[in-house]
Structures are given as C-alpha cells and as structure tokens.
C-alpha cells in the first residue's frame, strides 16, 4: 500500500455488540481496515465470526457500538439520516438470496427503474433506458425488462440484483455470500461478472464469503475473521501460499480439496465458542493447537509479518 493513496473506505476500531438475554453478543470487536479504490477485499470466516455484521457496519446499515467508518474522507458514523440516504448511492449491497431480494410482484424493469429514480431525477423513458443499460451491463438484455422475477433462474436473479445495486453508479459494493446459494456453474458466471465490473468501472468490493476458493479467485487482499476479530489480513497470494496465523492454516486445510487428506491436516478440535462469552486473550486459543499460557493474557495486536500481511498471534516461533 502506498502512503499517497487515501483509502476509499477507512474503518477504525469498529465494534458492535448486540443486546441479548445475559451478556451481549460481541459480533464485531475492534476491527480496523482500509479498502482502496477499485480493490477487492475478501472477508472470510465461519458462521458467527461477524463477517455479515461487518459488511453492514461498513455501509452503516447498522450502527456501531463504537468505532468509525469513513468513505472517501467523509465520516459516515456521524452523518444525519437524510444525508446518509443520499450518500448511499456510492455504496451498495448484494445479498445471498436473490429469491428473497426481488419483489415477486414487480417486473424487473419496474424494480430497476425504482432504483434508478431513487437517486436520480430521470424521466420515465430515460429511466427505462438506464434500466435496459443496467441489464446489458450484467449480461441480460432489454427484452427482460417486462418479465417477473419468477421467469428467471437463480443465476439470472443474482445478475438482476447486481444490476439494481449498480443503478446509482456506486463506487463500493458489499457482496454478502452473493454466490453461496448458486450452483457451481452459475457461481462462476456471477464471480466473473463481479470481477469484470470491478475492472471496468473501478468498483471497490468487499466480498464476504465462507468459501475460501471463491475468495481466492476474486480478491486482491483478504481478511480472516474469528469470533468478531481479525486473525490475519494479507494480500491474497501471501494469505494462501504462506498464511501466518494458525487459524488461517486450519481453515485452508479444512477446505475440501485443500490438498491434504486424513491425518496430515491440522484438524481443529471443537467448535466456535459463543460470541457472548469469548475466551480471554486470543479468542482462538481454545481451539489452537499451538496455544500457550501467555495466549490467555492479552488480546494479541495485529503485527506485520511482511509488507501488507498482518497477523494477530503472539507466537512468532511457529513454522506453519
């Protein structure tokens, strides 16, 4: 990362606790990161790691407990609701389930026109032209405008959801498990589409997924979350070829087709502890095969392993 380039998104110390019976759920805990213009940041982790909450915090779709988010130098966390609504045109979101995110009683054209006119004062014809252009951008055509969502396959619906997100010409897109519900042949189609939009329009992308192999294909950098905290953040090639955190290693080896079968794997014991009662010190220590007494004491800070690669682990003596 060069010093000169101000990041498009700057997240600092973001924390979100959800009230619950008993102690609060610590969904996201003190997370800081940047996303550069046109960059794809992958966010990986298992269920309950806080990745979806983090995506929503980045767009201020939910309020942080503490911490700040700045978009292109503008502080989002203190912005008034009206201003935030207008500002949202720069930042959009695509969700996992394309069946749930489209209104079944609205034609695709109407859904897109609504999205276009929400941010821009366009006449009916202009808005329809823009909607047709959006469909072409995602590989569909103007003839699809008057059809209803039920006429489309899962992959096509996800393309439509992406077209709608692109309506206000955003500069930043959060994709939350956007390809997870799709069959592999369709997954490839949507990933390629997102990648080409990023290249063509310089769109920055936060790509949230539990699927490490898809994240590797699409991302420039990736962040590994566990129990609401960053374990490691690194350029994609470093993360996959020389992971520095024991959890990253375990996650890569556990992924099917990770190249290791049976006994050679770093097989983690147990499951993720409750985010209402995270372990003291390093939150991963209860499942970490390399944990020592010191790991229970302090939350390990993110330290630089090599340029751009940071890990939250006090053990520098490991060969992983």
């Amino acid at each position, binding site marked *: 990362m060069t010093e000169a380039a101000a990041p498009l998104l700057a997240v600092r110390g973001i924390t979100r606790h959800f009230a619950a019976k008993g102690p609060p759920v610590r969904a996201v805990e003190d997370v800081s990161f940047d996303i550069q213009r046109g960059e794809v940041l992958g966010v990986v982790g*298992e*269920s309950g790691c806080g990745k979806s909450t983090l995506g929503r915090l980045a767009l201020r779709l939910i309020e942080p407990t503490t911490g700040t988010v700045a978009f292109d130098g503008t502080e989002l966390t203190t912005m008034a609701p009206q201003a935030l609504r207008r500002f949202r045109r720069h930042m959009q979101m695509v969700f996992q389930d394309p069946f749930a995110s489209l209104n079944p009683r609205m034609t695709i054209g109407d859904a897109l026109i609504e999205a276009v006119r929400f941010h821009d004062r366009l006449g009916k014809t202009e808005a329809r032209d823009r909607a047709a252009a959006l469909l072409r951008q995602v590989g569909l055509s103007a003839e699809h405008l008057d059809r209803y969502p039920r006429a489309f*396959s899962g*992959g096509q619906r996800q393309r439509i959801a992406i077209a709608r997100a692109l309506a206000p010409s955003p500069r930043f897109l959060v994709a939350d498990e956007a390809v997870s519900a799709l*069959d*592999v*042949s*369709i*997954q*490839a*189609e949507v*990933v*390629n589409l997102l*990648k080409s939009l990023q290249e063509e329009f310089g769109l920055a992308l936060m790509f949230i997924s*539990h699927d*490490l*192999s*898809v994240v*590797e*294909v699409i991302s420039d950098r990736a962040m590994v979350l566990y129990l609401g905290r960053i374990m490691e953040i690194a350029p994609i*090639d470093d993360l*996959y*070829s020389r992971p520095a955190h024991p959890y990253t290693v*375990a*996650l890569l*080896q*556990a*992924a*099917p*087709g*990770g*190249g290791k*079968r*049976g006994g050679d*794997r770093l*097989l*983690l014991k147990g*499951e*993720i502890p409750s985010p209402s009662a995270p372990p003291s010190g390093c939150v991963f220590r209860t*499942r970490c095969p390399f944990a020592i007494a010191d790991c229970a004491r302090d939350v390990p800070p993110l330290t630089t392993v090599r340029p751009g690669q940071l890990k939250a682990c006090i053990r520098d003596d490991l060969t992983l």
Partner: protein
Amino acid sequence: MAKGAPLPERDSQRPVLDVRDLKTFFPTDAGTVRAVNGVSFVVREGETLAIVGESGSGKSVTGLTIMRLLGRTGAEIAGGEIWLTRGDGQRVDLARQPEAAMERLRGSEIAMIFQDPMSSLNPVFPVGDQIAEPLRLHKGLSRRAARAAAIELLELVGISDPAQRVDTFPHQLSGGMRQRIMIAIALACEPRLLIADEPTTALDVTVQAQIIALLRELQTRRRMAMIFVTHDLHLVGDVADRVAVMYASQVVEEGPVADVLSRPAHPYTRALLSCIPRQQHGQPRRRMTPIPGTMPSALATPHGCRFHPRCAFAEDRCAAALPSLESIAPQRTARCIRWREIWS
C-alpha cells in the same frame, strides 16, 4: 455392540448395493417429471461412491429411492432394480419390498443421514432416546442395554462426556454435534450401507473436516459401504473412492475419483471442473469458466444427449440419439459419443 472391532478382511469386491436402470418419476399437473431416469451403479463393501451433481440433477432422489423414502414426495419407482446384499448374504430387491419389509431393513441394513440434522431429530426427546430407538426396535435391546449402547455410540462419534450428553435435547447442541448424533443413530445397528445426503453442507469448513474424518474412520473400521451425495466436487476428492457424475436425471460418467477428477471423459464433468476455482498457488489466477445455458427442466429434456445444447464438443449427431453409458476402461464409464477425443 456399538464399538465394532475391525472385521476380518473379506472380498472387497463384494457388492453391497447393485442399482440397475433405476427410474423414479413424479406425476405433476404439467407432466411426468423423470427425476431419475435409468441410473445404474454398484457400491462395494468398504467403498464410498460419491454421487455428484448440480441442483435438479436427480442425485438426492436417487438416495431417497434406494431408502424407499419417496412417500410424501408423490414419486414412484417406474422401473429398475435395487439389489441389496444383506448381512446374512441374501440379496433383496429394495424396489420390490413391501413397506413392512423396508421398515425392518431401514436402520438395520441401510441407513441415511441428511443435510439438516435439526429437522431430522425429534426436538422433544433426549438424544439418547433417539439413538436407543433403533437398537430397541431392530435388536430388541432392553431399555437399560440400549441406553448403555447409546452412550458407547456417542463416544464413538466423538462426543465428550457421553454419559451426560445422552440426556441432552437437540436444541442444546451445535450443528456439528447434531450431525454427530445423526451419525450415531444411523450407525447404531451397524448398517451395511450408509447413504449420506449432503451431510456437511450446512456446516462450517472446520466442522465439515471433522465430520468427514469421522465418517471415513467409522467406515474403514466397519467396512461399511457409503453413498455420499454432494454438489461439491472438491469434497468428492476428500471423501470418496469412486464418483458418479449426474446430469439431468442420468449418470454421465463414473469411475475412480482421482481418475475422473484428473482426466474426465465426459464434457459435463470437464465443464464442471473448470467452473470450480482450484487452488493453484503461485500461478496467475484464472477466470472460472461457467457452463453456458442452464440445466434443462426435467419436463423438457433435450433430445439426444441431454448435455448437447450446452456442450462445447457437441456435433449434429449428438442431438440424434441418447448416448449409452459406455465402458471406456476398466472401472470407467462415460455417456458421450466423443469420449475418445475428450479423454485423450
């Protein structure tokens, strides 16, 4: 006897299940949906056959048909045979067993686990009772003996404090734990064949790795045959010995896993492999190549080869007639008239 000692080495070629030309059809208002249309395969003792395919390929219906659990779906077996070799050596055709006989076979000779353990477990009974039930039903164990066996089974599937966990309810357990309970129930009576339908799809990867390791260990120990139904080609390489690839209600290719994944003979297998992102560290990242078009509806399957409208290798003759599942090498079959060119 819950903790089975390794069985003596026997003829590993012995088929436990021999499925021949199986057809399962759903009558609908719009016409007959041929969900499984002429599927044949063999699963041997101690062997795992993965059935892989995308949604709508017919892979899950195949599993349900073998278990004869089609009841509520409205589907019927429209043809074919499902030969199971029972523990006593007798062969029975599951396609023709009356329901009462199936009830005796399910749980004792064949068992099944599903994607979602929460909807398969009864929420109002402790897990121990649910593991004990098949033991009492099929083996006539007393309440006390069944409970003791349930505790042993919990230990077998890697659950700590089994003597306490036996009294917990499903909602008190995590997803991975629940799937372990389902495995304990399925394995209680030491079935000869386990059908696992996407058993790890709802689980996180680190837990998925645990469950796969557990299934493989138990299978080796008991020389059980397993059918592993999945959409995940990556997983196939980790779990199975052989793989059958399904497309549009039919098997298009079958063979040893390593062979099929490294040298596919059918264009669909090849296309499927090229649209999954494979980890190739240090090499420039490739784009994933999607398969053009969409899976045909089971109501309107294309004439000739079902894959030809989407196939990069299709010729005019591919549309003329449905290719047969040809033997292309020992233990390898493919349903493509151009396999020689594709396979080389």
